[in-house]
């Protein structure tokens, strides 16, 4: 598998994502937000961080980066697109995923390891998970998932909710921590699987995420 990790100005989990992918033997490369083509990549990762300082709204400015046209084309072509944290925010702003990520219910950044339920163990991103309960790191100030009721109902009906918080750390609608688009090839999630792939830093519950993508 060949993967691109998009680097926006202000991305700061780009190298962490690159490392995690390389640990699983993926041929991964950093691609600038100014690039216009993603030809040749099988999977595209939008990493965490504070693209353009998260000024105005998280992801609002990044969605106009030149690379986003290529990301949209790749999504339409059925390639795997993964947005983690700020990447999730960018995907919603760009309209590639429904809803929006908003300021946490209690204002303030939270950094914690939280219990998560893998709701859908069939997705292209979770099919290697054997157990439903896992622990993943979160690190965000604007991670409250919001969508109108109709959208939420649709997400539930189509099994597009992939991860849920077991305790609602940020006030997300229906405790949603991660969703896919209707076709199932575009994923956005607030927790950081790339920070949970090595025992030495205390958590390996992200490993099955990468194994699923490779499967």
């Amino acid at each position, binding site marked *: 598998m060949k993967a691109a990790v998009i680097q926006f100005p202000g991305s700061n989990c780009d190298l962490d994502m690159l490392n995690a992918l390389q640990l699983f033997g993926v041929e991964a490369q950093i691609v600038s937000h100014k690039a216009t083509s993603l030809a040749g990549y099988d999977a595209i990762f939008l990493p965490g961080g504070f693209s353009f300082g998260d000024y105005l709204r998280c992801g*609002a400015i990044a969605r106009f980066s030149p690379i986003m046209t290529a990301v949209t084309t790749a999504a339409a072509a059925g390639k795997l697109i993964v947005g983690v944290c700020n990447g999730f925010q960018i995907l919603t*702003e760009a309209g590639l995923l429904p809803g929006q990520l*908003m*300021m*946490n*219910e*209690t*204002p303030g950044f939270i950094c914690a390891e939280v219990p998560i339920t893998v709701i859908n163990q069939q997705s292209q991103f979770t099919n290697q998970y054997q157990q439903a309960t896992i622990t993943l790191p979160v690190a965000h100030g604007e991670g409250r998932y*919001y969508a109108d009721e109709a959208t939420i109902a649709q997400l539930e009906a189509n099994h597009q909710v992939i991860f849920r918080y077991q305790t609602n750390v940020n006030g997300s609608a229906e405790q949603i921590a991660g969703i896919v688009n209707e076709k199932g090839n575009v994923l956005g999630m607030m927790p950081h699987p790339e920070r949970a792939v090595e025992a030495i830093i205390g958590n390996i519950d992200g490993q099955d995420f990468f194994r699923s993508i490779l499967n």
Partner: protein
Amino acid sequence: MYLGKVYVSYKPSVFDPQGDVIKTSLHQLNFQGVESVTQGKYFEIKLVATNLTEATANLVKMAEELLINPNTETYQYAIDEIEVL
């Protein structure tokens, strides 16, 4: 030159945590009469255009393309011609 002012606020159904925190603080500061607080954004944009109609059209486009997220936010605006210094 024109000065556009854009006021962005959340749609009524969207929870505004900052507004909530501020309301609580105002109560603690003894402003008991406060019923609700919402916090939005306020932009001042100076722009050059050939006339007011064009300036207004541009301002509206900026608001809708970039400044707001139509899922959760609405906006009002005002625009005036100003002297160039």
